[in-house]
C-alpha cells in the first residue's frame, strides 16, 4: 500500500482511494480509459493506480469511447469488474449505443444469466470555465435508460462510499462525478474506517420546516448556500441530496415534502425533459394533498451549454433558487 491521501482530502482523492481500495480487495476490478494510466487521468482521479497495480489493471486504452465500453462489456462477460473512465460528459456520447443496447440490457436480454458489473465514471456538469463540450449535464439520457443505475455524489465521503458501492454492484452504474466539486474538501478522513453507501438512498443534508430543495451533485452546495441565505427572509429550508437518480428514493423525498408542504427541484441539466420534470411529477402524484404550492423547478436553460464567459447566467444560483422559493404561494398560507 502506498501513502494515504493528504488531509483534508478532496473529492478527487476520495474517488482515487475508492478505486484503489476496490482494486486491492478484488483482483477482478480493472480501471480503463483515456489517459488513466501514466498520466492518472486528466483530472488525476486515477493517479497512482497504474503504478501500484500495473498497466494491466489500470489501462490506457486507444482513444475510442465505444471501443472502451464495448471491450469492458466483453471483460465483464468473462468475470472482470471494469471501471471505465469517460474523459468528459460530452465525450461519453460515442459510447451511447454500447451503453443503451448492451450495458443496460444484457441482464434483461439473457433473463439474468449474464450480468455486466461495469462502473462508468463520467465527469459532468459546468462551472469550471470549460469551453464547449466540456460541461454537459447528461443525466437525463442515462435516467431514461432502464437497466442502468445513475449515481452522483455531492460530498467527499459520498464520493468514496458511493463509488465503492458502484464497483461492488452487479448491475452497471453510471457514476456521474460533478467536476466542479473535484477539488472540494470536507471533513472526510481517509484514515478512518470507510463506509460503503447503499445505492438508492437520498439523504437530508439540512433539515428545515418551510420548504424542501430537492437536488443532487453539483447543485447540492448551491442549495445549502441558498438555505443559509434564506434564513434572512425567514425561510427554513430543507435540502435533500438525492445521491441516486436511479433508483429514485421516493420515500425520503416524499417524507420531506410532506413535512414542509413545498418543494423546489434544482439541477444544472436543462429543465425541459430534464430530471426535474420527473421528480416534480412523482412528488405531485404522491404528496398532492400535502402541497401548499406547485412543485417548482430551477434548472439550466434549455440551451446548448453556454460558453464559459456566459455560464454564470445559465447555472442555477442562490438568487434564482430564492426567487423560486418566494413563488411558493406563501401569502395563501396566512
Amino acid at each position, binding site marked *: 500500500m502506498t501513502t494515504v491521501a493528504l488531509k483534508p482530502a478532496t473529492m478527487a482523492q476520495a474517488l482515487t482511494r475508492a478505486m484503489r481500495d476496490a482494486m486491492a480487495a478484488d483482483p477482478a476490478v*480493472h480501471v480503463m480509459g483515456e489517459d488513466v494510466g501514466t498520466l492518472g487521468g486528466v483530472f488525476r482521479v486515477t493517479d497512482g493506480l497504474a503504478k501500484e497495480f500495473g498497466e*494491466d489493471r489500470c489501462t490506457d*486504452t*486507444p482513444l*475510442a469511447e*465505444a*471501443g472502451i*465500453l*464495448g*471491450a*469492458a*462489456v*466483453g*471483460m*465483464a*462477460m*468473462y*468475470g*472482470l469488474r*471494469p471501471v471505465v473512465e469517460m474523459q468528459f460528459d460530452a465525450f461519453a456520447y*460515442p459510447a451511447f*449505443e*454500447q451503453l443503451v*443496447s*448492451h450495458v443496460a*440490457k*444484457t*441482464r*434483461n*436480454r*439473457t*433473463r*439474468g*444469466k*449474464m*450480468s455486466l458489473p461495469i462502473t462508468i465514471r463520467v465527469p459532468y456538469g459546468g462551472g469550471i470555465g470549460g469551453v464547449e463540450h466540456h460541461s454537459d449535464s447528461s443525466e437525463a439520457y442515462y435516467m431514461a435508460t*432502464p*437497466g442502468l*443505475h445513475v449515481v452522483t455524489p455531492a460530498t467527499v465521503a459520498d464520493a468514496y462510499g458511493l463509488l465503492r458501492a458502484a464497483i461492488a*454492484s*452487479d*448491475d452497471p452504474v453510471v457514476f456521474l462525478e460533478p467536476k466542479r466539486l473535484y477539488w472540494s474538501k470536507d471533513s472526510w478522513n481517509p484514515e478512518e474506517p470507510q463506509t460503503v453507501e447503499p445505492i*438508492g438512498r437520498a439523504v437530508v443534508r439540512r433539515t428545515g420546516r418551510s420548504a424542501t430543495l430537492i437536488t443532487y451533485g453539483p447543485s447540492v452546495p448551491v442549495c445549502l448556500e441558498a438555505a443559509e441565505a434564506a434564513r434572512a427572509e425567514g425561510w427554513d429550508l430543507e435540502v435533500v441530496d438525492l445521491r441516486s437518480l*436511479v*433508483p*429514485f428514493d*421516493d*420515500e425520503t423525498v416524499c417524507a420531506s415534502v410532506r413535512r414542509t408542504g413545498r418543494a423546489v427541484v434544482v439541477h444544472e441539466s436543462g429543465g425541459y425533459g430534464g430530471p426535474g420534470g420527473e421528480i416534480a411529477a412523482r412528488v405531485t402524484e404522491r404528496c398532492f394533498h400535502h402541497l401548499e404550492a406547485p412543485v417548482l423547478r430551477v434548472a439550466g436553460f434549455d440551451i446548448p451549454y453556454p460558453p464559459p464567459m456566459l455560464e454564470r447566467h445559465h447555472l442555477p444560483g442562490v438568487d434564482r433558487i430564492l426567487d423560486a422559493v418566494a413563488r411558493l404561494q406563501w401569502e395563501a398560507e396566512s
Partner: protein
Amino acid sequence: MTVMEQRGAYRPSPPPAWQPRTDPAPLLPDAEPYRVLGTEAAAKADPELLRRLYAHVVRGRRYNAQATALTKQGRLAVYPSSTGQEACEVAAALVLQERDWLFPSYRDTLAAVARGVDPVEALTLLRGDWHTGYDPYEHRVAPLSTPLATQLPHAVGLAHAARLKGDDVVALAMVGDGGTSEGDFHEALNFAAVWQAPVVFLVQNNGFAISVPLAKQTAAPSLAHKAVGYGMPGRLVDGNDAAAVHEVLADAVRHARAGGGPTLVEAVTYRIDAHTNADDATRYRGDAEVEAWRDHDPVQLLERELTGRGLLDEAGVAAAREDAEAMAARLRERMNQDPQLDPADLFAHVYAEPTPQLREQRALLEAELAAENESREGTAR
C-alpha cells in the same frame, strides 16, 4: 565562412519521432479467395473433417428451410436466413474448442446451433417470446447481436480478459459486409491489434446489406485489406468452400491462441434468400446473379468433393439427409408448441434487485392480469 558552410552539409532525414513500423507485406490477403474443394489442396484435407462439415452443412441447409417455413406458419416473427452461407456458419462453430467463445450476429443462429445451442433456444429471439433464449455461458455463445458490429468489441474485451487471467481462450466474432462500415468494427479491430487480443473476426461478405451492394459500402481493395491498416493479417477465403473456411479459421485460431494476436478473415459468399422473410430481394438484384451462386453452392461443393473421391457414397448422402430431416421434424414439432410466457419476467431481470419503482409497476400489471382473469372467468360462467 558562409552561413550555409557554418551549418554543415544538409542531410535530409525522416522526422525524429518516426519509427519504421510493421512491414505490411505479410499482412496482405491473397489476390484471390483461398479455395480447397476441387483444387489440389483438397488431397491434404482430413477426410473425417470433410465428412463432418458435410453432415453439418446438410443439416444447416435443412435448418434454414425449416426456420423460413416457420415464419410462414406464424411460428417465427422473422427469420434472417443463412441459406448459401452454411459453410461459414458451420466452420465458425466447428473450428472452436469448448473453452472458446463465439460472438454471433442475428444471421448466425445456425453457427450457434452448430456449436451446440438448442435450436429452439437459438430461435427464441426470432420467435419473440424473449430476447436471448439460451444461457450464454452454457456453450460460450454470446447473445445474438442485432445492432450491427456492436458484438465485435465484446469479443475483443472477452479475449483480452481471458488472456489477462492466463486462459488460452480464443473469441471468434462474426459480422456482415455492411457491418464493416460501422464505427464499432473499426474500434474493435484497432483495440484487438493494439492489445494483441486472441480474436478472430469473420466477415461474411454475402454481397448485400439488405439492399445495398458492397460497392456502395466500401472503396477498399477488399474487406480483408482493411486488416492491414490495423496491423493484423487479412485473409480472403471462398466462403462457400467449407474446407477452405475451416482451414483459414483454424490457422487464425491457432495463431491467436499462440499469442500471435487477431486476424481478419473475409469470406466471400452469397445470401441466396432475401434479407429476411419480410424482404423482397427482386427490388435490388436479378435472378441471373442468384443462379450463378447456386452453381457454387456450399453443400454441392462438399458433396462433389466427397463423392468424387469415394469418401461418401449414395447411402452416406441419404443418411445425411435423413439426419437433417429428423432434426427438422423435431424442430418443427417443438416450435409448433406455444411458448410459456410469464409477464412477471418483464420486471425480474432489469436489475439484480427490482427497484421500488419496478415493484410498483409489477404490482400494477399483476392487478391488470388478475382483473383480466376475473372478467374472463365471468364471461365463462
